[in-house]
């Protein structure tokens, strides 16, 4: 019984990490695509777009890490 609970905790942790990273991947990919579009349309704004894109990507990365931390908590807490 205990091993079942442990196994399900591990599956849950893996799902939490994996699914949140899928979401972050979609989000960062979208940002990259839009930033590329924006730079292609307006090359003179490249620096501004790049800076903003990095900040947004870092914010999304934070959201993915929330999921991973929840997964780690499920595993060890």
């Amino acid at each position, binding site marked *: 019984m205990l091993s079942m609970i442990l196994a399900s905790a591990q599956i849950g942790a893996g799902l939490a990490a994996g699914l949140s990273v899928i979401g972050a991947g979609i989000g960062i990919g979208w940002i990259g695509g839009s930033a590329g579009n924006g730079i292609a349309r307006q090359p003179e704004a490249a620096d501004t777009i790049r800076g903003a894109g990095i*900040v947004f990507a*870092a914010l999304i*990365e*934070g959201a993915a*890490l*929330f999921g*991973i*931390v929840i997964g780690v908590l499920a595993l060890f807490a």
Partner: protein
Amino acid sequence: MRKATLFLACLVALICGTALPAQGHGHDGHAHEVRPITEMETGEFFTNNFVHLMPHQLSEGEVTFLTFYDVNLYQLIVLAILCLVFLPLAVNPNIGGWPYRVLRGWVHWLRDEVVYKTMGEEEGRRFAPFFVFLFFFILTMNMIGLVPHQVTSTATTMVTGALAVITFVMMVGGGILKQGVGSYFKHLLPSGLPAALIPLMALIELIGLFVKPIALTIRLFANMLAGHLLIYSFIGMIFVFAKLLDVSAMSWLPAIVTTVMAVFINIIESFVVVLQAYIFVFLSVMFVQESLHPAH
């Protein structure tokens, strides 16, 4: 030129010198027993490494409110480094030499592009010193963690949480001081709301208020921890492959590959370190500005 070299040499010596206290005490108080890796479980290669990420107390005895952890020691070390680096600049703002030119430009960029751009010059003038300090404090703590044998203070929720609480107090306290208690909490709600929605929205906005510092805490903590976990995982993988190959001469090959990967992660980390310090400060400035001047 010679002054700049001396300056850098002092800095490197200081950071390397901090390795001594970290090595002096055994991690977790008890030494790892030395066993051949063929007898160890696969999980042990990783858990033995991950243990080093936990803060451990330097003082003996029970855990109390004032227990001194290695994380605290490293915060003090970071403060000392910041004092040493910035003191000449504080005494004479026009001092020459390229390290000071770099630092001065950096501080100016932070003040003009981060604080003044969001808060405006008049109000930003009061907040700029704190946010500049916050940036360099977090940055130095993150950077020290990249040096082997050092402790990353920001890889614990306690340190990042304390920093986020400071931001939270500035948000709420600043908002209340600026607008008054009633006005501050009234402006948390969007204006023109139907009366039926007010209790629900009040709950949501109240949760949103507390989520902001928690998000700041987790973002910095998790980013720092994740990089270190990756590096440790790659280092642990050396031993996994060595065990799989029965410690033959072939185990050099995966060891080289995983070491290169660990170095690669370290290079990425050195970018993340600066980015996360910037994000923390940038979001803090945004949150404080938002609560000082609510949107109508």
